[in-house]
C-alpha cells in the first residue's frame, strides 16, 4: 500500500508540477514532516498536534512519518523563530492560536503572521457571556440596565476575552470593570463565589456548570448559534455586533511552493473530516469545527491581527 501511496504522491506531484513548473516539487515530501508545538508537552498546542499526527498516521493520510516536536518558550516566540529559520521548506507545520498574532505584536521578535504560510483554520473556541444563575442578571438587558459598574472576569489583559468585554462595553454604552485572572479555573471559581458579576470565557471550563444550572450563558460570540449550545443566543441576534472567537489552526514556513502547500492542505483537510478527529479532539475540547482553507484563513488572520492591534494599542500595551 505504501507503494500505491508513493505512486499517488508522485502522480499528484507530477500534475502539480506541470501547472506550477517548479523543479523541486516532485520529491515533496522527501522526508518526515515535523509538527512544531510552541508549548511544552501536555499543553494545548502539543495535544492538538499529537491528536492530528495520530489520526493522520492511523488513516495513512501522509506518505511520510510525522514527528511532533516541542519548541516551547516565549509564548511561542521560540517556535516562530524556529519555523522562520526553515523558510521555504514545506516539511514543517506549526500550530497557531491567538499567541501566533499577539506575541509578535507585544514583543519585538521581528516577525509577524505575514512571515508564515497559513494552511488551515481547524476550528474556533467561541466566547460565552456567563452569569451565576443565582445572581440578579438573567438577560443581556439586565446587564445593560444595571445601575453600577459591573465586574467582569476573564483571562489576562489584551486577551480575546478582554477585547470582547471592551466591544460589549462600547455596544452597551456603559463602563465595565474588567478583572484579569490567570487561567479559566480562577475565573470559574470567582464566578461560582459571586466575586464577579459575569465572566467572558471560552466554553470548555464552564460547559458542565451550564448543564447543571449553576451558571447560565446569556450570549455567545459567534456569527450563528452553535450545536454545542443551541439555546444560547448570539450577541449579534441580541443587537450587539460582536463576532470574535479564538482560533485553532496550522501554518507552515514562509515562501513554500504551491505543491507543498497543497499537499499539507489536503493532509490536514482529510484529517479534519475523519470521525476520529470529531470524536477524539473536537468534541472533548468543545471546539466548534469551522474549517477555513489557506486563502480564507489568511484573510481571517489579517482581520484578527487588526482587531488585536487596535485593541492592544487602545489598552496602551503597544505603541
Amino acid at each position, binding site marked *: 500500500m505504501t507503494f500505491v501511496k508513493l505512486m499517488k504522491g508522485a502522480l499528484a506531484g507530477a500534475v502539480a508540477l506541470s501547472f506550477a513548473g517548479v523543479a523541486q516539487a516532485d520529491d515533496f515530501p522527501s522526508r518526515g514532516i515535523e509538527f512544531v508545538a510552541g508549548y511544552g508537552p501536555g499543553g494545548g498546542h502539543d495535544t492538538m498536534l499529537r491528536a492530528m499526527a495520530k489520526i493522520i498516521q492511523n488513516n495513512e493520510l501522509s506518505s511520510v512519518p510525522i514527528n511532533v516536536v*516541542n519548541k516551547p518558550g*516565549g509564548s511561542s*516566540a*521560540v517556535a516562530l523563530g524556529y519555523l522562520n529559520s526553515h523558510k521555504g521548506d514545506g516539511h514543517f507545520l506549526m500550530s497557531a492560536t491567538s499567541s501566533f498574532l499577539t506575541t509578535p505584536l507585544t514583543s519585538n521578535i521581528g516577525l509577524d503572521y505575514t512571515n508564515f504560510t497559513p494552511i488551515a483554520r481547524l476550528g474556533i473556541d467561541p466566547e460565552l457571556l456567563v452569569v451565576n444563575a443565582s445572581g440578579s442578571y438573567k438577560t443581556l438587558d439586565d446587564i445593560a440596565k444595571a445601575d453600577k459598574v459591573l465586574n467582569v472576569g476573564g*483571562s489576562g489583559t489584551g486577551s480575546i476575552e478582554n477585547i470582547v468585554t471592551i466591544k460589549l462595553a462600547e455596544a452597551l454604552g456603559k463602563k465595565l470593570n474588567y478583572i*484579569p485572572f*490567570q487561567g479559566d479555573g480562577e475565573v470559574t471559581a470567582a464566578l461560582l463565589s459571586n466575586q464577579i458579576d459575569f465572566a467572558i470565557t471560552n466554553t470548555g471550563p464552564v460547559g458542565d456548570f451550564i448543564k447543571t444550572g449553576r451558571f447560565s450563558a446569556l450570549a455567545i460570540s459567534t456569527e450563528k448559534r452553535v450545536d454545542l449550545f443551541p439555546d444560547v443566543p448570539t450577541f449579534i441576534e441580541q443587537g450587539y455586533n460582536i463576532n470574535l472567537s479564538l482560533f485553532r489552526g496550522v501554518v507552515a514556513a514562509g515562501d513554500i511552493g504551491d505543491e507543498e502547500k497543497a499537499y499539507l492542505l489536503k493532509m490536514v483537510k482529510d484529517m479534519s473530516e475523519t470521525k476520529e478527529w470529531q470524536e477524539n479532539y473536537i468534541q472533548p475540547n468543545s471546539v466548534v469545527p469551522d474549517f477555513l482553507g489557506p486563502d480564507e484563513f489568511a484573510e481571517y488572520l489579517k482581520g484578527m491581527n487588526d482587531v488585536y492591534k487596535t485593541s492592544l494599542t487602545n489598552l496602551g500595551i503597544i505603541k
Partner: protein
Amino acid sequence: MLDTLASLSGGFETVLTFHNIVLIFLAGIIGTVIGALPGLGPSAGIALMLPLTFGMPHASGLCLLTGVYMGTMYGGRITSILINTPGDAPAIITALEGYPMMRQGKGGLALGISAISSFVGGFFGLAVLVFFAPIVAEYAIFLGPPEYFMLMLVGLSTIVLLAGDDVFKALIVTCFGFLVSTFGSDYISGHIRFAFVPELIEGIDFVAIIIGLYGLGEVFYNLERKIVLNLGKPNFRFSDYIPGKEDLKQASGPTVRGSVLGTFIGILPGAGATIATFLAYALERKLSKNPENFGKGAIAGLASPEASNNAAVPGSLIPLITLGIPGSGGTAIMLGALIMFGLQPGPLLMIQSGDVVWAMIAGLILANFFLLASNVLLIPLFVNMLRLVQKHLPSIVVGLCIVGAFSLNYGTFNIWIALIFGVIGYLMRKNDYPTGPFILAVVLAPLAENYFRQSIMLAQGSWSIFINRPVSLTLVVFMVLVVCASIISKQLLRRRRVGTE
C-alpha cells in the same frame, strides 16, 4: 459516610487487579526517580507519562498519572537531602534542613524521617479528599484575591525567619528576588516586562533558578574548598536508617501540623505545594523552642514541609475533581489528561464518571503505601550509591543539572540561566547572603503583586476590600497580632536582660 466508603471499596475492586497493582507500584518508582532528577518535577513527570496512558483503561491511566504525581513529591526530597540539589520546587525547604543532616552523617536518618512524614502527609490529604472533597471545595472557592494576597503576605513575612544574622543582606536578596520575578508577561496589565530575548517573554523559569542556585552553586562552592561529605562506612544495617523513638517523637507534632496545612493550602486554587512548604517551615520555626537549630538540621523543619508537600497532592486534586479547577501546574496537566480520556472535568465528573475517579483515589492510597515501603527500603541503596560515586559527585551533579535545565524547555536558554544563578549562588554562599529569602521572594512576590492588583480592581479602586471580607479581615487581624506579639516579646526579653545585668 457509608456511601463514601461503598464508593471507595468499589474503587479498590477496580484497582486490585494484578495489572493495576504492578502499574501503581511502577508509577510510584517512576515518580520517585523523576522527582529526584533536578529540573523534572510533577508537571514534567505527568506530561512525559501522558503518552503511555493512551490505550489504557481510564482508571489505570489515571492511577499511573496520580501515582507519578505523588511519587515526585517523595523523590524531590532525595536529591535535596543527598546533594543539596532540590529535584523540584516543593523540595527546596527540605534541602535547608536535610542537607545539613547529611553533612553530619545523618543522611539516612533524614531520608527515613522525611519518608515517614511524606506518608503521613499524603495519607491525611487523601482522607480529606475521600470524606470531605465536595464540601471543602465549595468553601475554598469563596476565598478570592484579597484572601490570597493576605496569605502571600503571611508567606513573605517568613522572610524574617529565614534572614540569618544580617538584616541588610537578607533585604538585598529579597529585593533581588522581587526583581527576578518581574520578568516576562504580566497578565494583569498585558505588558511584557524586560524581555531582552524572546525566551524571557514567559519569565525566568523558577526551576532553572533553583537548579543553578543550589545544584551548581553547591558544586562551585565545594570545588573551591574540597569538602568531603561525612558518609561513614559502608552500611547496610537497616536499624541505622530507621528513625528511633526519640526522633519520631520530635517529628510527630510537625508532621501532623504540616499535613493539615499542606492539605488546605493545596486545596486553594493558585497556592500549591511549594507555598505550603514555606508556610509549614515558618510555622515550625515560630513554634520551636530552639529556633537557632533551624538551618543546622532541625528534624521539625524537615518533617513538617515534607508532610505538607505530600498532603498538597490530594489537596490539589479536590478542586480538580469536584469543580474542574486546577490548583497547580501538575493538576493543570491532569486536567488535560482527563479531557483526552474523554472525561469532562467539572461538577459532573463525580456523577458521570464516579467509578473512574474512585478507582483513581483508591490507586492513590495504594501508591502512598507502596511509596513509603519502597522509599524506606531504598534508603540504604541511595546512601551507599552516593558513597560509591562521592569522588565523582561534581561531574555527576553538573551533568544532571545541565540536562535537567535543558529538559525544562528543550533548549540551551535555561542552562544559561542555571549557570548564571550557579555563579550567583556561589557568591551568595561565600559571602553569607541567605538564599531562603531570595527563593521566597521569587515564588511569592509575583503572586502577591497580582493578587493585590486583582483585589483593588475587584473593589474598583477601594482598599476596603481587605477588611470587608471576613476571612481576609481575620488574616489581617492575625498578622497584626503576630507582629505585636513578637515586638512585645522582644521588649520583654530586652527588659529581662537589662534586669539581670
